[in-house]
């Protein structure tokens, strides 16, 4: 499984990168960690003319807290996220999620931006970003715009990124006092793509849940924010009744597709189970 032929460029600045992207259009692909892209090239699933390696562009890596925002540069690796004390402190949801991303050797090179831009429906960061109401910074030549995570993921492997645009960072509001996070996923083996998963972030006060953001992965072509489940829980203690009421809403909101091993019914069932367990963990 040898990759098809392609050209390779490693721009030293965003402006050079934009030049290349503009010139080659669809024929160019952005190479960051390459942990997904290079696999797909080895499998000959795509045949780009040119890979634009953005790893040398300054300003795209790093984790920094500024005011009430934690910024994760697009080139930040999963390993850096795993080892980051700021993320452990301010974004515990992401800290819980990152250990599920593949295996160490993949995490050593794979990047935050790569995962967001690919938008695999089983990926961990997109649901965390949606649950935490993050914003993505998209740059093009001479301009920059921000798109909320909940609007960024449009369809299967489809995002708000336009041709010629580059994701440069994710901006996360710091977890406020009283908020708790639980990340759960079900996978047959450690590091596999999850069958279904849940990023849950809510305010828990005196045992009651409010402002719950429950983002499911593997429940559609994009992260699904279960707003009806959240509404069913609002202000309540997650006792058996409340959990059941929340679980009952999932059938309407989640759009599972069957995969090789699990029917839609199975996945929906598993999503309900995860919700129950996450709520139990939040309130614990």
């Amino acid at each position, binding site marked *: 499984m040898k990759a*098809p032929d392609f050209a390779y460029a490693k721009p030293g600045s965003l402006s050079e990168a934009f030049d290349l992207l503009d010139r080659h259009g669809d024929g160019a692909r952005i190479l960051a960690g390459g942990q997904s892209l290079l*696999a797909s090239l*080895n499998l000959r699933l795509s045949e780009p003319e040119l890979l634009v390696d953005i790893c040398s562009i300054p300003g795209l890596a790093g984790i920094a807290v500024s005011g009430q925002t934690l910024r994760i540069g697009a080139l930040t690796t999963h390993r850096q996220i795993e080892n980051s004390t700021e993320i452990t402190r301010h974004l515990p949801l992401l800290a819980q999620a990152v250990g599920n991303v593949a295996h*160490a050797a993949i995490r050593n090179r794979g990047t935050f931006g790569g995962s967001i831009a690919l938008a695999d429906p089983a990926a961990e960061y997109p649901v965390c970003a949606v649950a935490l109401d993050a914003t993505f910074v998209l740059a093009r030549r001479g301009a920059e715009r921000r798109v909320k995570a909940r609007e960024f993921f449009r369809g299967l492997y489809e995002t708000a990124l336009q041709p010629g645009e580059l994701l440069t960072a994710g901006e996360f509001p710091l977890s406020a006092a009283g908020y708790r996070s639980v990340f759960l996923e079900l996978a047959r083996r450690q590091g596999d793509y999850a069958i279904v998963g849940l990023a849950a972030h809510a305010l828990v006060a005196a045992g009651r849940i409010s402002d719950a953001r429950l983002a499911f992965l593997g429940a559609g072509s994009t992260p699904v924010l279960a707003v009806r489940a959240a509404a069913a829980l609002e202000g309540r203690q997650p006792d058996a009744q409340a959990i059941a009421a929340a679980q009952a809403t999932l059938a309407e909101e989640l759009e599972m597709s069957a995969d090789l091993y699990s029917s839609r019914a199975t996945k929906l069932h598993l999503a309900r189970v995860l919700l129950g367990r996450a709520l139990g963990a939040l309130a614990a």
Partner: protein
Amino acid sequence: MNATWGHASNMDETLLTTLTVNGRTVTRRISARQHLSDFLRDELGLTGAHTGCEHGVCGACTVRVDGLAVRGCLMLAVQADGCKVDTIEGLSDSGEIADLQGAFHRRNALQCGFCTPGMLMSAQELLSSRPDAKRDEIRAHMSGNYCRCTGYHAIVDAIEEVAASRREGRK
């Protein structure tokens, strides 16, 4: 830093690339599409890293780049420009993993040997970054390396033994 580019054609474009492999500086013209694993094996004759799947799952191709374990099949050789690459041959000759190799040998934590270089690379990274790793953490970390022969038990035993003796040595 390479800012060169070329038109894609049927004749592979090559890029002048310099990297350090097992302590020796190497400069070659490398085809953009050749992954690091194939480069090490075919161009440099370092056949210790093996090709098992070429989609990053089996771990047989694991080598170390700038101090981190990576899948050689998921890195272009040209991306290693300016990098320091260590392979199993280098780690063996320097003695860095002699204790791991000894433990694997004594416990028969290898049979056909095809996964072994990758296993040792991953194990060395685990022990370097988490010297207190418990048995279940060892199992979780080593899940990135597929072995069909051993069933993993002896591998976990060997790593656990070395973890303990290194901790002993540090005290």
